[in-house]
C-alpha cells in the first residue's frame, strides 16, 4: 500500500469519526470532547494531505480547521446550523480526497469556506505549507523535558518569563511546573527572578521551534532541553529533583522509610504539597503519552486480503485435520488418534483466533446509518430519531460489509413508508418524533439485527390487493396477516403510490431477502397497522466455516448447515413419496412437507431401507429433507462453487471431506423457496399444513 492509499484509508476513518461526532453535536449540543474530536480529525487530514501532496485537500481542511479552532477556543459560539455546514464540509473533503482538484471542486471549496468564514472574526492564518508536519501523525515515542532557570536579573533587564512560557505552552500538549527557588536566609528582592520551570512538551514538536521561544534570552538563561524516551519510568522523586524542590539524598531517605516519596517529603516539610501536585502532573503527562503509545502499538493494520488468505489457510488446515482423524479411525491407529486429537484442539484454537481477528463491532457502521436518518428526515420533512443498541456486537468483516446495503434499504423503507409525518403522528396520538430502533445482539450462535419503527405499520389490505393484481396470490388463497406481510419480499412488489428518491420502485425487498439469504441468513418481518414494523435479520457469525450435518444420498455426501436443523426423524413406510419427490412427514403431531434430495438432484440409486428426514427451519417454515442416511456432524469449510455453478439453486457451496471427496452444502432456504413454497400456495397442497389433530 503506498502513502496515498494509506492517507485515503486514514482520511476515511477520520471522516467517519467526524461524522459520528457531528451527529452527536447536533443531537446533544456542543461539548468540548466532541469539538475536540472533530478538530483533531480535520487537523490530521490537513497535515497528512499536505504531506502526500494533496494541497487542494490541505487548503480546504485548513480553513475548516481554523473555524473549528475558533469554536474550540470559545472565540465563537456554537450555533445549531453550523453542523449542517460542517457536515457538508466533511462530505466535500471525502470527495476531494478521492478526486483530482478540478475547477468545479475548488469552486465548491470556496463556497463552503465562504459559509464558515463569517462565523469567526479573526483573520485566517496563512495556508499551510504542503510540507507542514502533523503531530498526530508523527509517531514519536517520547517527549521534551525543558529545565529553565531564568537569569536572576531577567525582570530588571526587561526579559519577562511570561511571554516565553506562554509561547511554549501554545506549541502543543504541555505541562508547566513552576517553583520559587528562594534561600530562606537571603532577603527576597521582588525585582529579581527566583522562578524555575520544568516544562514537558509533546515529542512531536520540533526542537528548533521550542528553542525559538528563547531567542532573546538563550545566552543569559540556563536552559536544558532533552528528549526523553517513553520507555523510561518517570518517578516522582526524580521529578522533584529536576524541579529543584528536593535533593537526591532526601529522596533516598524517603525511599528507605518505605513511604511514598510525596507523602514523606510533605510530612517532613522538605517540599510543599503544591510541589508534589506539580510533580504528579508531570508524571500523569508522561503516563498519558505512554498509554497512547501502547494503544497505538496494540493495533496493527493488516490488509484485508492477507486476512482472507489466512482464513483460507485455516480452512485448509481444518480439512487436513479432518483427514488425519479419518485416517486414524480407519486404521485403528491409537498413536495417530492421539496426534489427531491434539491437532483438532490446536486447529480449533487457531480457527477461533483467526475468526476473532476478522470480527468487527457492528457499531462501526452505526454512524453512517445515523447520517442516513438525519439526511432523510430533512428531505422527507419528518422528525425521526435513530436509537441504536448493541454497538459492541461483533460480526465477521465480510458479513458486516454485505449487510450494509440491506440495512440501508430497510432503514430507507422505514423512513419513507413507516414513520409518518409529524402532523399525522400528532393526529394519531403519537409523539411528533418517530423512533427507529436498530439493535444488534448475538442469539443462539447467530447475529440478530432488529430494525423496529413506531410508524404506521404495513397496510395488509393494500398488500393483498397488490399481490392479487400482480398475480402473486390467488383470490381463494387463505393467508394470515403475517403471510400477507411476507409478500413484500416477492420480486417487483411495491405498494408505494409514488416512486420517490427514497424507495418505491419495488426492486428492494426481494433484493434484501436474496442478499441476506446469500449470507446464509434469514429475514423475518412482523407488523401491526398503526403501531409499527419490526424486521429481524438473523445471520451466521461467519461465512467461512459452518457446523454441518453430513448426510448420505445414494453414496453422495451432502452437508446441511446445523443452524437450520431442528431434528432428524425416520421416514415411515406409509409416508410414501409422490411422483414429484415430495412427501408429507408426520412429526410431533403435525404434517410437514418434505423433499427427497435424491429426487431433487436426480441422483440414481436404490431406495434406502430406512430413509431419514432432516427437519429444517427456513424463514420460520419447517420442512423436511429426505436422505438415505445421517452420517454425523462435520466442521465445514465453505468453498465457492465457482462461476460455472454460481446459478445452481439449492446449493450454497461445497466442501472437501477428510478423505478428499467433495461434498455439496445444501441451501435449505433456497430449496424451500423453489420447491416447497410454490406448492404451498397451490390448492392441491393446502392439506400439507393441516394439523392431523
Amino acid at each position, binding site marked *: 500500500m503506498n502513502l496515498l492509499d494509506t492517507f485515503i484509508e486514514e482520511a476515511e476513518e477520520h471522516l467517519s469519526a467526524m461524522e459520528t461526532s457531528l451527529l452527536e453535536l447536533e443531537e446533544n449540543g456542543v461539548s468540548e470532547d466532541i469539538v475536540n474530536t472533530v478538530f483533531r480529525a480535520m487537523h490530521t487530514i490537513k497535515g497528512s494531505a499536505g504531506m502526500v501532496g494533496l494541497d487542494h485537500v490541505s487548503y480546504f481542511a485548513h480553513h475548516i480547521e481554523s473555524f473549528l479552532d475558533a469554536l474550540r477556543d470559545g472565540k465563537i459560539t456554537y450555533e445549531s446550523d453550523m453542523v449542517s455546514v460542517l457536515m457538508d464540509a466533511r462530505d466535500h473533503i471525502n470527495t476531494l480526497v478521492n478526486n483530482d482538484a478540478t475547477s468545479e471542486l475548488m469552486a465548491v471549496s470556496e463556497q463552503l469556506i465562504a459559509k464558515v468564514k463569517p462565523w469567526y472574526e479573526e483573520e485566517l492564518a496563512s495556508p499551510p505549507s504542503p510540507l507542514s508536519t502533523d503531530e498526530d501523525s508523527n509517531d514519536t515515542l517520547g517527549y521534551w523535558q525543558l529545565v529553565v532557570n531564568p537569569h536572576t536579573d531577567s525582570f530588571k533587564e526587561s526579559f519577562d518569563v*511570561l511571554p516565553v512560557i506562554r509561547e511554549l505552552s501554545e506549541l502543543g500538549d504541555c505541562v508547566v511546573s513552576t517553583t*520559587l527557588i528562594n534561600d530562606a536566609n537571603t532577603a527576597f528582592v521582588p525585582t529579581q*527572578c527566583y522562578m524555575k*520551570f520544568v516544562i514537558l512538551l509533546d515529542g512531536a514538536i520540533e526542537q528548533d521551534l521550542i528553542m525559538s521561544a528563547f531567542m532573546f534570552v538563550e545566552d543569559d538563561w540556563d536552559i536544558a532541553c532533552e528528549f526523553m524516551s517513553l520507555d523510561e519510568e518517570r518517578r516522582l522523586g526524580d521529578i522533584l529533583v529536576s524541579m529543584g524542590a528536593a535533593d537526591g539524598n532526601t529522596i533516598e531517605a524517603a525511599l528507605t522509610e518505605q513511604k511514598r516519596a510525596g507523602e514523606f517529603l510533605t510530612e517532613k516539610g522538605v517540599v510543599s504539597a503544591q510541589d508534589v501536585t506539580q510533580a504528579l502532573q508531570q508524571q500523569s503527562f508522561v503516563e498519558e503519552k505512554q498509554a497512547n503509545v501502547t494503544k497505538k502499538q496494540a493495533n496493527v493494520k493488516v490488509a484485508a486480503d492477507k486476512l482472507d488468505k489466512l482464513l483460507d489457510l485455516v480452512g485448509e488446515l481444518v480439512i487436513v485435520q479432518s483427514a488425519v482423524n479419518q485416517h486414524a479411525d480407519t486404521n485403528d491407529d491409537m498413536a495417530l488418534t492421539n496426534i489427531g486429537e491434539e491437532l483438532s484442539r490446536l486447529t480449533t484454537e487457531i480457527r477461533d483466533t483467526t475468526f476473532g481477528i476478522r470480527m468487527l463491532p457492528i457499531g462501526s457502521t452505526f454512524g453512517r446509518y445515523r447520517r442516513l436518518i438525519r439526511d432523510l428526515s430533512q428531505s422527507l420533512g419528518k422528525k425521526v430519531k435513530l436509537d441504536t443498541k448493541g454497538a459492541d456486537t461483533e460480526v465477521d468483516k465480510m458479513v458486516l460489509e454485505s449487510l450494509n446495503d440491506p440495512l440501508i434499504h430497510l432503514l430507507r423503507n422505514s423512513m419513507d413508508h413507516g414513520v409518518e409525518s409529524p402532523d399525522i403522528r400528532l393526529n394519531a396520538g403519537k409523539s411528533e418524533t418517530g423512533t427507529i430502533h436498530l439493535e444488534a445482539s448475538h442469539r443462539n450462535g447467530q447475529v440478530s439485527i432488529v430494525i423496529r419503527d413506531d410508524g404506521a405499520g404495513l397496510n395488509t389490505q393494500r398488500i393483498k390487493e397488490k399481490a392479487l393484481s400482480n398475480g402473486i396470490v390467488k383470490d381463494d388463497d387463505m393467508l394470515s396477516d403475517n403471510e400477507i406481510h411476507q409478500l413484500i419480499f416477492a420480486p417487483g412488489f411495491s405498494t408505494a403510490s409514488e416512486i420517490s428518491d427514497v424507495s418505491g420502485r419495488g426492486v428492494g425487498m426481494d433484493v434484501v431477502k436474496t442478499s441476506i439469504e446469500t449470507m446464509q441468513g434469514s429475514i423475518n418481518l412482523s407488523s401491526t397497522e398503526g403501531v409499527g414494523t419490526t424486521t429481524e435479520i438473523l445471520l451466521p457469525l461467519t461465512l467461512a466455516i459452518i457446523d454441518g450435518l453430513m448426510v448420505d444420498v445414494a453414496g453422495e455426501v451432502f452437508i446441511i448447515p446445523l443452524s437450520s436443523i431442528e431434528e432428524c426423524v425416520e421416514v415411515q413406510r406409509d409416508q410414501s413419496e409422490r411422483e414429484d419427490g415430495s412427501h408429507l412427514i408426520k412429526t410431533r403431531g403435525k404434517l410437514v412437507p418434505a423433499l427427497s434430495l435424491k429426487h431433487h438432484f436426480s441422483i440414481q440409486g436404490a431406495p434406502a431401507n430406512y430413509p431419514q428426514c432432516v427437519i429444517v427451519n427456513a424463514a420460520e417454515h419447517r420442512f423436511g429433507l429426505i436422505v438415505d442416511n445421517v452420517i454425523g456432524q462435520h466442521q465445514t469449510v465453505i468453498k465457492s462453487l465457482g462461476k460455472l455453478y454460481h446459478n445452481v439453486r439449492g446449493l450454497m457451496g461445497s466442501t472437501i471431506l477428510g478423505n478428499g471427496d467433495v461434498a455439496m452444502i445444501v441451501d435449505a432456504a433456497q430449496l424451500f423457496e423453489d420447491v416447497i413454497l410454490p406448492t404451498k400456495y397451490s390448492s392441491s397442497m393446502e392439506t400439507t399444513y393441516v394439523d392431523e389433530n
Partner: protein
Amino acid sequence: MACITFPNEVTIFTVDKTYAKCVNTIEQHAGAVSFDFQHTEEVDGCGLQLILQLSFMIKDTNNDVVITHSCEALNDVAAVFNVTDMLGLCTAKESTQ
C-alpha cells in the same frame, strides 16, 4: 483577617512598593490574609512571582491565604504558569460562570 488590596498593576514597575506594603500588613496582622485583586488589571511574570512569594510567606506561618476577588489578568498568568491550584484560584471557566 487582614486584607491586602492589590493595585491596578502588579508588574516589575510596582512590585517593590507592593511587596513592602504587603509585608508590612502581614507582619502587623496575625492570622489568615485575604488578597483582593478586584482593581488589578495587569499582572506580569514578576507580579505573579510576588503573589506566589507572599502566599508562601503567609502559609509558612501556618496561616491561610484567601483570594476574595480574583481578576482576569491574574487568572490568565496563573494558568500559563500552572499555579492556579497553588494560589487557590478558580479556573477561568469557573470564574465566568
